[in-house]
Structure formats: structure tokens, C-alpha cells
């Protein structure tokens, strides 16, 4: 994705790094987002999702690296970038002592919308976000779910080209979660959406493409379907075995539960890559076979384990 011509991309981030003091929140993050795409950042809490979102929206600059949004540099041309972005921060910060419509009017003015557009758009977003009965209620009196809607309403008010949503469904009740997802899907048809979540099923419902981020690094990038495949799919192992290749390879392939096995030599080391069938743990069988045949088992590594661990930290089902 990143290797593509950056001109066709809505957002293009290269070498994005951000330090909080000595601690790197994200390190060398690269990605691209196409126009009209819905991209999900999936990762456990503290993985660097919020940091990435904050950089994209121009709230803070990256320590290193470069981001362009619609070919505007996010640091050098911050104002142009900010004009094109609608943002829903994770905590949905709102002025609690303002009424909903007053707040939206204020945000519209800050976004330099013409007054007559503000009026029209306020009534539109109030409809879209179903805030009709609460338009003159003080935000401080609204429940968390309704505040979330106000947050989304302000983010889409100025019809931004890019919508950045940080954990848009966190802390709201299940019915509202469903509604919010539907809303994001609708918005995603016309706008470029970047959202973050720690809920695995959420990305498969909403996103065209997923970046998995963990400990500040992107560890996988794929469509939700492929990722799901990889998650439940076969496990890969790398095993170094001392013994004649012509005998070892057939012996490995003959093992129960092995989907495929291949061999390569690296600097005199005989490395075998073994694909196990779903859910099979072959370590025991492999070591028995190798030892039993009088060969030597020199090393054994389970591949993709880190991805697995990340998935374990993710919420893989809805908490209802």
C-alpha cells in the first residue's frame, strides 16, 4: 500500500515515530489510506492508536516521520489539513455547559463554515445522529451514549473529507454500538474514515482494511476477512533439524496434522518450515519423530506467535 504512488492516497504516513520522553509510543509506522476507504487501527490498549490519531489530526506533531493528507503536509500545512479532518477523540471532550445546538454552531464557526451552511448542517447532523429531542439540552445533562452522538455530530458537521474516529464505540450501550457502526458504514461510503478499536469483530463489520498495531508498531495489515483467516488458520513453525534432508522431509510430511512442510538451507543449517493444521500443536510429535529417528533437533520456533499474542489481548467478542 505504502509503495503505491502517494498521489492517489488520501493519507500517506512514512516513518511515523512519536516519543513521550524516552518512551516510544509509536515507532516507524508506515501506512496509506486510499480515498473513500475505511481503515481500522486494531490493537490492544496502549498500542499507540490514540497517538497515531492525534498526529493525523494535527493535535501534535510526530517526533520523526512525515504524514501528508490530501498532499498537504500535516505539520507544515497544518491549517489546511485541519480544515479537511473531522475528529472524534477517544474521551469525547465536550463543553458540558453548552446546549447541543449552541455547541454545534460554535464548532461550525471554528471550522469556518458559512453561517447559512452551519444552520443547514446542524439540522442535518441532528437528524443523522438522532439528537432531535435534545437539541437545546445542556451537554452536561446528556448520557454517555448521547454525548458520543454529539461527538460524532461535531466531527461530521463540516462534511470533512477525512473522518478520524478514536474508539468510536467505547463505553456506549449495545444498541447504540450497533447504530454507531451503521452510521460509520454510511459515512464510509463517501468519506475516508480512519478509526481505531480494540474490538476484533468491529473491524470486520466496518472496515475495508485493517492495520494491527501493537507496542507502537504495525504488525499486520490485511482485509478483515484475510485476518480472520490468519487468526484461525494454520500455525507455522520453523524447525532446525540435523539429519539427511531426503529422509527428514518425508518423515515430517507423514506426521499427522502437518499440512505442508518445506526445506531450505541457510549457512549450512537445515531449516524446515512446517504448516500445521488448525489447532494442532505438533511440537511434541516433531521432537519425538526427530529423536526417534536418531537425528538431532537443534531449534524449534513457532512463527506468527506475536500476532497470536496480540489477538489474545484483543477483545475477540462483544462484551454485552
Amino acid at each position: 500500500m505504502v509503495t503505491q504512488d502517494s498521489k492517489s492516497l488520501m493519507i500517506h504516513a512514512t516513518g511515523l515515530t512519536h516519543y513521550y520522553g524516552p518512551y516510544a509510543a509509536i515507532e516507524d509506522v508506515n501506512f496509506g489510506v486510499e480515498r473513500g476507504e475505511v481503515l481500522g487501527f486494531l490493537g490492544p490498549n496502549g498500542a499507540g492508536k490514540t497517538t497515531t490519531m492525534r498526529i493525523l489530526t494535527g493535535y501534535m506533531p510526530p517526533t520523526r516521520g512525515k504524514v501528508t493528507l490530501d498532499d498537504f503536509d500535516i505539520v507544515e500545512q497544518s491549517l489546511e489539513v485541519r480544515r479537511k479532518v473531522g475528529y472524534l477523540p477517544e474521551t469525547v471532550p465536550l463543553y458540558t455547559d453548552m446546549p447541543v445546538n449552541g455547541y454545534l454552531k460554535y464548532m461550525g464557526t471554528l471550522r469556518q463554515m458559512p453561517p447559512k451552511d452551519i444552520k443547514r448542517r446542524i439540522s442535518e447532523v441532528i437528524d443523522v445522529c438522532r439528537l432531535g429531542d435534545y437539541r437545546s439540552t445542556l451537554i452536561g445533562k446528556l448520557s454517555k451514549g448521547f454525548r458520543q452522538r454529539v461527538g460524532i455530530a461535531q466531527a461530521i458537521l463540516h462534511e470533512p473529507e477525512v473522518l478520524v474516529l478514536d474508539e468510536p464505540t467505547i463505553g456506549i450501550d449495545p444498541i447504540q454500538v450497533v447504530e454507531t457502526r451503521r452510521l460509520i458504514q454510511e459515512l464510509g461510503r463517501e468519506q475516508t474514515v480512519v478509526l481505531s478499536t480494540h474490538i476484533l469483530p468491529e473491524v470486520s463489520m466496518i472496515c475495508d482494511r485493517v492495520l494491527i498495531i501493537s507496542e507502537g508498531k504495525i504488525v499486520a495489515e490485511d482485509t478483515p476477512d484475510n485476518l480472520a483467516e490468519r487468526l484461525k488458520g494454520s500455525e507455522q513453525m520453523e524447525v532446525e533439524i540435523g539429519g539427511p534432508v531426503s529422509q527428514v522431509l518425508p518423515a515430517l510430511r507423514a506426521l499427522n496434522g502437518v499440512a505442508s512442510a518445506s526445506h531450505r538451507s541457510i549457512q549450512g543449517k537445515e531449516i524446515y518450515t512446517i504448516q500445521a493444521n488448525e489447532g494442532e500443536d505438533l511440537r511434541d510429535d516433531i521432537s519425538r519423530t526427530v529423536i526417534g529417528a536418531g537425528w538431532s533437533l537443534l531449534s524449534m520456533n513457532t512463527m506468527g506467535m506475536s500476532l497470536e499474542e496480540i489477538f489474545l489481548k484483543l477483545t475477540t467478542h462483544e462484551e454485552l
Partner: protein
Amino acid sequence: MRTVQAVAWKEIQIYFSSPTAYIVAMIFLALASFFFVRDLSNPFPQASMSSFFQGATIILILLAPTLTMRLLAEEQKLGTIELLLTSPVRDWEVVLGKYIASLVFLLGTILLTVYFVILLVIFADPDFGPIWSGYLGLILYGAAALSIGLLTSTLTSNQIVAAVVAMGILLVLYFADFAAGTLTGLPATIVNEIGLKSHFDDFDRGVIDTKHIAYYLLLTSFFVFLTIRALESRRWR
């Protein structure tokens, strides 16, 4: 400019919808009345506002920071600063808007004390020169005090800290001419010229000196400028 206006208007509305501002205005007027009346209860009273002006400079040290403490500290506390700074708004527009709001509120409060002038006109024959120059001085003085409060509000998310630090700075500046008394030569002159109070007294006497006007305007612009830089630095911290 529309953004500045929007920010200022929003803050002014919040002043009028929150009790804090009313309390501040009420305390200001109550104390101001006390100072005004105190002077008039002399056996040989003067139809002057001097006592009120002198008192007001002290009251403002305490009250100006309570007007400004909320302006940026609360945005940081609530996190709303994140949406503010990701809007296509320049930092100086935010700062200027907030500053104007606090200034408008203070001017409104000071305007209410014109009541004292009316009383003087009804019951005596005051000399208007020192009254108008005194008001000019008080407004300039208040404007400077607000700019200091705005800076400290930018530096912390804690409103109390913002207010107390601003009061501290104001007190130091207010009593600078006392400190100047213990010094001699050039340092004495410098410390004296920095003092908030030493520049006010001429206004109270009916003297409008451009030197003093320049002092307050410089002080105000300096702190407003620092506020803008402090807000910008949030992006880099």
C-alpha cells in the same frame, strides 16, 4: 476574525451562565463600594474616586485571575482543547478570543461602578479630570492583570493553580516599588518601573502620561504573546 469573535462570544456566554463570574462581579462591587464609602465618611470628605481606584487595584489582583483561570485550564482538564486545536483555528485566534471575553466582562463590571460617579455628581461637585483618567488607568491595569491570568491558565489544567500563580505574579509586580525602596541607583529605577502600582498613581492624580499607557499596553501584549507561545508549545510537548 470570525473565529476570534466566536471564541470570545462563547466565553462571554459562559461567564453569564456560570455563578463564578457573578460572584466575582458581586465581590468586586461590594469591596469597591466599601473603599468608595470609606473615603466619603471622613469628617471633611472629598468628592473624589481616589479611594475607590486605590482599592480597586488591590481587589483586581485577587479577582482578575479568577476571571481568567477557567479560560484555558478547563479546556485542558476536559480535553476539549483537543478539538479546539484540531479545528482550523490559529492559536492566536483562540488566545485573543478568550482574552477579549475576559476583558469585556471586566469592563462590564467596572462600568457598574459609574454609579459612584453618579452619586458624586448628585451630592457634590467632583473634579472629572482625575475620575476619567483614573478609569482609564484602572482599565489598563485590569487589562494587564487579565493577561497574566490568561498565561497561567494556559500553563496548567488546574484552575486553582492558575489563579494562585497569577495572583502571586500580580502581587510581586504590585509591591515592586516597595522593593525598589531598598535598592539604589539603576536597579531601583528598573524595579520601580516594572511595578504595576507605580504606573497607576499618576492616573489617579489626573495625569495621563503616555509612558504609563505604554507600560500597561506593553505588559499586556507581552503576556498575551507569551500565552500564544505557551499554547503553541503544547503541540510540541
